[in-house]
């Protein structure tokens, strides 16, 4: 699966910002992941423990904020979950829809330890 490439990207981002901020170590990494991203949290955690070895991110805790996928009807403005797959608007039956959330895929923040 592609979790390994994704995890390496997360590490690069955490390292870059951690070093810029003068971190001695990174203790926590906060991720925001939309449901449309097809990423398995456990796999990312598994690879994370591997790829962070001997870096300032070693032992850092990953935190996932999951955003459910939703669509918004362009006809009646109803917003509804598509966790069970895309479907016509449950209110008016229209298929004129747009994804309103669930595409989020970013590193929101890191927590670091630095010398006083």
């Amino acid at each position, binding site marked *: 699966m592609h979790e390994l490439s994704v995890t390496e990207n*997360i590490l690069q981002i955490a390292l870059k910002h951690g070093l810029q901020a003068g971190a001695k170590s990174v203790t926590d990494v906060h991720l925001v992941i939309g449901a449309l991203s*097809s990423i398995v949290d456990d796999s990312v955690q598994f690879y994370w423990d591997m790829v962070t070895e001997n870096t300032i991110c070693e032992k850092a805790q990953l935190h996932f904020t999951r955003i459910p996928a939703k669509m918004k009807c362009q006809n009646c403005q109803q917003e509804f979950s598509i966790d069970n797959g895309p479907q*016509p608007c449950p209110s008016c039956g229209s298929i004129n829809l747009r994804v309103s959330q669930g595409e989020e895929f970013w*590193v929101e*923040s890191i927590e670091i330890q630095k010398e006083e």
Partner: protein
Amino acid sequence: MASKIVPIVEKIMDANEQIAAVNQKILDDHNVFAINIMASPGSGKTSVILKTIEALRGKLRIGVIEGDTAPVTIDADKIIAAGMPAVQINTGGNCHLDAVMLNRGLEQMDLNEIDLLIVENVGNLICPAGFALGTHANVVIASIPEGDDKPYKYPNIYRGLEVLLINKIDLLPYINFNMDYFRQGVEILNPGLTTFEMSCRTGEGVQAWADWLYAKTKRS
């Protein structure tokens, strides 16, 4: 020691997207129009490419970059046998091509000698959708035997594409495939998507797709 929160908000795929932009610049500098073909294994990716080469022979110079998980050159060999340059990228077991891999592939392809670059991604409906390559259009091939529920089960791959090819339509009489249900799922995810129904076996519908591709390539 002091704790500190460092706000970031950086897209996880940002590095890949930056290299994809570099790839697109390389292609544009050589006046090459490039498409990224994504589909499940067995949907007919290589067959579609061979039919496309046949339909455009003498009109466009075509190069093909083949993404494969294993160093098996079956697909690349078929392209070379059809008289077009092919480069094989072995992903080393990885489930998708990414922008860095395509960048390496571009280095091996003489871009001055082609007008159209066809990239055949690894057969997979999930992972390739997450990795931009820098091509100009994403193409998905769906095939009738895969079933009519695929847009509902793999919504991501149907969202970021410019053209959908529905292959193996000669099998419609034999398979329980509800075209209206399939197309409704596609329309929800990608309104007004350009779609061509075709059969590589009978040749039906291939010309319409080739004409679209020819027009796009000439305009670029």
